[in-house]
């Protein structure tokens, strides 16, 4: 569920998603994790947008422009082609200022304009609404809907290697959930549905690459029960079920259903660390593909997910994250993708209006049914600077190194970008 975060905005990430069990402002809860404030979530009123009051809502308009140099626009293992791309994003966020309940809306349009590789030019859009109805105490029900068009970077190996135009997909997704909190117990339930429709591409000979095989719908249901051992710690058990239905199962993705059962804990130790971690078991059953004459497959094994923030000082936050789960995309011929990832990120507040960040991430993808596995490392560094509450700029560098068990798919990609943002 999307929630407004008034923090130093960056030209390409101007909103953040809050935990779906966030409580209304001012409420007390045994599950609140607000004893520590991370660098990126710390409020700086002198550098925050004021918004435009419209009745009981505040509207936040944002305009961001970035110049990015990508030295390997097609993520090729050899013969890399680089180019400049100008990313322009116009966005508006609206949030209610009621004492109870919450209604938010958002909309954005992003254009990517390449200087030389103009066939890669795309336009993305996103529009959505989220709502939360507060009930007794910290119990609530919430729902949200979103419609958008997204560009898939070539660094994602689901994009055909012979494409010369950018891959895009249309996504319509919705969610509905509820939270019940009774003293030390909290129960959460949630249902998500998403529909992915991929747009066709062109290859170097202007032939159409049909991407309908990737079209699919995903349904997921989650339930979680938590017990607050203390105001700073809680233990929980969670169960989730999912189903994926492909329009053309077998060529790139197969119909499947599965579940994940985990136990975990969340904690918030003042001036030390906070986080949540869960471990358990996952199983995903992929249907047989009569068209390809492939038998049913099962992917199973340990499941884990966690995010821990360590606060060595109040000016520095170190974030560790790890996960192992079934991905929403896959490559040609595979039933699905089992992804394992982990990483560490460091954020440091040099000045109130200058934040420096760096990160190292690792991803490993196992493609079910074809025996292929890819590994990727990414290294990033960025700085965000706000001149005042309206103007800011950023500078970033990212390097991606991908190694595949299939030949000819390794690549290295470096991107450097400089951007400016205006907000009100």
């Amino acid at each position, binding site marked *: 569920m999307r929630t407004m975060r008034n923090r130093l905005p960056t030209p390409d990430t101007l909103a953040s998603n809050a935990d779906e069990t966030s409580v209304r402002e001012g409420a007390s809860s045994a599950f609140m994790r607000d004893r520590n404030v991370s660098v990126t979530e710390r409020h700086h009123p002198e550098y925050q947008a004021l918004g435009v009051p419209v009745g009981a809502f505040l509207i936040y308009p944002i305009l961001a422009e970035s110049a990015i140099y990508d030295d390997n626009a097609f993520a090729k293992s050899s013969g890399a082609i680089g180019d400049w791309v100008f990313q322009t994003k116009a966005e508006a966020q609206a949030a209610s200022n009621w004492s109870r309940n919450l209604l938010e809306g958002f909309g954005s349009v992003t254009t990517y304009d390449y200087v030389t590789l103009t066939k890669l030019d795309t336009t993305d859009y996103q529009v959505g609404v989220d709502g939360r109805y507060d009930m007794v105490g910290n119990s609530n029900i919430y729902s949200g809907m979103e419609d958008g068009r997204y560009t898939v970077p070539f660094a994602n190996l689901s994009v055909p290697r012979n494409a010369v135009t950018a891959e895009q997909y249309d996504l319509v997704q919705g969610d509905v959930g509820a939270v019940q909190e009774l003293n030390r117990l909290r129960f959460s339930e949630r249902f998500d549905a998403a529909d992915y429709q991929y747009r066709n591409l062109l290859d170097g000979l202007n032939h159409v690459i049909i991407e309908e095989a990737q079209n699919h719908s995903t349904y997921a249901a989650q339930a979680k029960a938590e017990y607050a051992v203390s105001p700073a710690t809680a233990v929980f058990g969670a169960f989730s079920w999912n189903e994926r239905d492909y329009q053309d199962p077998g060529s790139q993705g197969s119909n499947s259903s599965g579940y994940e059962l985990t136990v975990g804990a969340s904690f918030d130790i003042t001036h030390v660390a906070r986080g949540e971690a869960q471990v358990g078991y996952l199983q995903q059953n992929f249907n047989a593909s009569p068209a390809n004459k492939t038998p049913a497959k099962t992917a199973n094994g340990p499941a884990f997910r966690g995010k821990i923030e360590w606060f060595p000082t109040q*000016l520095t936050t170190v974030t560790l994250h790890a996960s192992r789960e079934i991905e929403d995309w896959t490559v040609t011929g595979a039933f699905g993708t089992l992804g394992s990832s982990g990483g560490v990120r460091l954020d440091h507040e*040099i*000045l109130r209006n200058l934040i420096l960040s760096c990160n190292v991430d690792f991803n490993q993808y196992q493609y079910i049914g074809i025996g292929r596995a890819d590994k990727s490392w990414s290294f990033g560094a960025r700085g965000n600077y706000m001149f005042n509450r309206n103007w800011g700029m950023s500078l970033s560098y990212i390097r991606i190194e991908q190694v595949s068990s299939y030949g000819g798919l390794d690549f290295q990609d470096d991107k450097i970008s400089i951007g400016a943002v205006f907000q009100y």
Partner: protein
Amino acid sequence: MFKCFLTAALALVLVGPLGAAAQSPSNPAPSRSAQAAAAEAASSGPIFEYRLGPGDKLRVIVFGEETLSGEFVVSASGKVELPLIGAVDAAGLTITQFQSSVGKALKDGYLKDPRVSAEVENYRPFFILGEVQKPGQYPYAVSLSVMNAVATAQGFTYRADTRHVFIKHLNELGEHKATLTAATMVQPGDTIRIPERFF
């Protein structure tokens, strides 16, 4: 019976002077309160002697002379305007020195044996700014330390450098950097700046 009485009287006569000799002015046995004061002085650090300055509000009492007593403010020129004797220098003097100065002035042609007492009623305020929650001007209190002053300003911000402090005294042109400890003291009229840290 008479012999016993005579012996006891003789003993009293002899012991009394001997006891007094043991407690002669050259070797007095200290009283309990004096012992405690001596121990406290030995264990405490240097005694901070406050010196008067412009803005201090004084209460001056001349015993038996109500018209010469009252509350007076040290002016910007460092003097105190007192009845009968006029302007008396105060800036830079300790309260004891000021008392003596006023007594001498009164004795010079006005009073035979003036008994003067003075105390500071309101000290000059101190100023604190920088990385504290509530910068501003606050009233000085005796033996105020920088840590006390920060607490008065509702504590450090999360960006405060808690190891150093910049202090400018009233009679100085610029601030100087000092290590911030529990014994770093504040004087009335000081401007204290808590610097920002970057790591």
